[in-house]
């Protein structure tokens, strides 16, 4: 399917042809598809500044995408100290991604750019929105490239910087003021999670994570359908996809919420060829239906009792959070034992509620 044009452009084209020619032009929408104004030179990216890509129109800090820069969302995101995220994807003309499996990253074409903006609302003292960083993953012929852009104080530009930085920030949410020394990752931290057998990879855009509606400007639509309409996704994907659920949707089954959370927050390392694949758990959504992969009644290999008042007996002990390593590792900010080991310096309180509820719901006890 061809890329559809915006109504404004259609109108302009219509005026152009109406005013300058007497020839009747049949269906200009079909004949002249809109061109994305994104500036992409594969030999020159990553650019030194974010503005060079021309991802956004108007004031850059509005993150209002130009045509071709398609917003998307993950059903359950990674927790990064309560930062909000706006995600976009862009591809060059005439290339598209292919479905691999429900649980694997799409096979993206060369030239794909995946854009993720991190920001906070109600940032103190002025109660304003503040964008901290934009991460761009670019697929080149020899693999993915990381580009980390750090926003300036004026929110007018973001500059390529791969060295990492700490940014103290305070904000209010739900009437409560929170603060954190927010960590903008260095290239080494990016690679820790974004790798498989040492090769750089994206993490989020898998069919299972995006097979849901998104509120586009033209209205809600399934993200896969939208990508297909944009020419970004080959139509050759199955009609039925095993899909994660929103981790914080109480109408969903508890175990699916927990497994969805584990997938987004843990599975990039706890997966074969991941950073921690030598540990006995496998937390991908497609692997975690097996209780052993979740660590239920599996004895831990690492002693974390130095940091606790207890010495937990299992990675997950049904009905017994104190004896469950996973609970303690999620419920701490101590670097040596916290999980995930990067990407957060606060405890995700709402996720603790979830893991407590879930562990307490598990039947039986370990032998």
């Amino acid at each position, binding site marked *: 399917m061809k890329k559809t044009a915006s109504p404004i452009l259609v109108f302009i084209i219509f005026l152009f042809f109406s005013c300058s020619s007497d020839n009747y032009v049949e269906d200009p929408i079909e004949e002249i598809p809109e061109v994305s104004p994104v500036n992409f030179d594969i030999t020159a990216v990553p650019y030194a500044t974010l503005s060079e890509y021309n991802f956004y129109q108007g004031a850059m800090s509005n993150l209002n995408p130009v045509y071709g820069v398609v917003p998307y969302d993950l059903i359950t995101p990674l927790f990064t100290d309560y930062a909000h995220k706006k995600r976009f994807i862009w591809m060059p003309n005439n290339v598209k991604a292919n479905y691999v499996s429900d649980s694997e990253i799409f096979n993206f074409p060369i030239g794909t750019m995946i854009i993720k903006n991190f920001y906070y609302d109600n940032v103190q003292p002025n109660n304003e929105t503040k964008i901290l960083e934009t991460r761009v993953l670019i697929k080149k012929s020899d693999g993915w490239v990381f580009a980390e852009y750090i926003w300036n104080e004026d929110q007018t530009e973001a500059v390529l910087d791969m060295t990492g930085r700490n940014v103290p920030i305070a904000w209010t949410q739900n009437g409560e003021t929170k603060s954190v020394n927010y960590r903008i990752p260095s290239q080494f*931290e990016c*690679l820790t999670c974004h790798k498989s057998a040492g090769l750089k990879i994206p993490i989020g855009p898998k069919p299972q994570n995006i097979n849901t509606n998104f509120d586009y400007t033209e209205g809600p639509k399934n993200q896969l359908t939208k990508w297909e309409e944009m020419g970004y996704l080959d139509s050759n994907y199955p009609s039925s996809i095993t899909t994660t659920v929103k981790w914080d949707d109480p109408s969903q089954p508890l175990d699916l919420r927990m497994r969805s959370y584990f997938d987004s927050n843990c599975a990039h390392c706890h997966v074969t060829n991941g950073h921690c*694949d030598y540990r*006995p758990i496998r937390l991908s959504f497609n692997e975690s239906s097996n209780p052993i992969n979740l660590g239920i009644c599996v004895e831990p290999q690492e002693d974390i009792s130095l940091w606790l008042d207890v010495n937990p007996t299992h990675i997950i002990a049904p009905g017994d959070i104190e004896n469950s390593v996973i609970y303690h590792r999620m419920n701490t900010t101590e670097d040596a034992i916290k999980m995930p080991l990067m990407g957060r310096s606060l405890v995700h309180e709402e996720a603790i509620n979830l893991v407590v509820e879930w562990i307490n719901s598990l039947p039986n006890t370990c032998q």
Partner: protein
Amino acid sequence: MKKITFCLFAILGITNFTLAQVSFTSQSIATTGQYSICAVDMNGDYLDDIVSVSATNIQIFYQNLDGTFAETNITTTPADYLPSWSIAAGDLTGNGHNDLLYGGGSGVTFMIANGDGTAYTEVSGPEFVFSQRSNFVDINNDGHLDAFVCHDVAPNVYYINDGLGNLTFNQGGIGDYPSGGHYGSLWVDYNNDGDIDMFMAKCGGEPARRTNQLFKNNGDGTFTNVAVEAGLDDLIQTWSAAVGDFDNDGHMDMLVGASSFADGGHKLMRNNGDGTFSDVTAGSGFDIFNGTSVEHATYDFNNDGYLDIFGNSNSVFINNGDFTFTLVAVPFSGAAVGDFNNDGSLDTFRNGTIFYNTGNANNWITINTQGVQSNLNGIGARIEVYSALGTQIRDVRSGEGFKYMSSLNTHFGIGLDTQIDQIIIRWPSGIVDVIENPQINASFLAIEGEHILGTNDQTISTVSLFPNPTNDQLNINYKGALIGSIATIYDVSGRSIHSEIIKDNSINVKNLSAGTYFLNLNVEGKSTTLRFIKK
């Protein structure tokens, strides 16, 4: 993590029931820091102190001579990085007060002690470092202690010290895998060539990332990974190794400890003495031990003259001396090791509890090293102890196992031996001290260059040997009077094998077997030692 195998007790316990066992009694100590993982002398009196740190405080319990402690709290500026992953101690400035290294998850902080140890200056680099094991070691052998930090997700980093505590950050040259996998750096002279090498325990990711490495010191500040030649290029998922001479043959062996059995179990490796290692795991006890650990270190807990091994599975493996080990359950799991009541048996400390070794009738000696040309701590020195039971060797090391910092005093049990014939200390500077018949059941303060085989005398620094290597004859080039002097040849293990009075400025070495030797000359009341190679 913690499974004590009953069949192990059954198999090994019965055959070795006569062994001196170990037992510990626990006593709490009021540490307040979040990180209570360090136990080392901090004030230069060679009594091991207890150190507990938090972001703005260094709490030190200085050990008194009577085994009690005097508590001090030193406020610091907030540390940018905390020792979540490891802590190390060493004296960067050589002022007699140890400095600390905090290995954090996103950087490294140094706490530099002032002249009397009453205040510390925080130095934190801007560089991102996902620290794992950290060490103080004189990497470039300039006499000043440097610092090394394993990087989990990038090439390793090290900090070169100008001698005043000014540190220059370096990344590259000693373990450069782009995505890291560097967990445990154990500095050891594995080939007895007098300079310090390093075993790198690796873990995680693709095979290339987690293949263990052995960095041979080229003697010029560079290192070459020789793990393949040495037979140590294992894929074991390991965070640390216990490195020591387990059979007292004069060569450093290794237990490469598994943190996970995903890619192989614990591996006990015997140093063959020719730069290679052989797998002697089968039948050792480690082949049937199903506990995993990130901590592995080696100490002689029962003072029987053989290094024992401990990890964090609440167990100590008592060394039977023949590459078999007997598991003994202990009440601690991963700990800092030192002598916290100065009774000659090694105790442990973790998190507010001291585990005192109840000791036994075996004899012992503790060597406290004080470098002069070399770094003040004597880190990197090789110590050899000769007694009836054999030769024992240790390297003075800052940063054992994975996380903890243990004593820098070098402790030897000698079993029921009542005499130590000789101690040889080979300092990083090349100076060799030989101490004859030291008092046992006591600490011995070894000051670099004070005992016999010093090379530090200026008046005879112009001595040289030629040809070197040599076949038959070793000629001594010296402009002063030499005839009538005493020349003694030592082998690499420090044994005197030939002595003569010099008659014509040359020595016949035709009958020596091929290898490296040391020639000590006693000239005009001065002593110098030179290395030569017999072809």
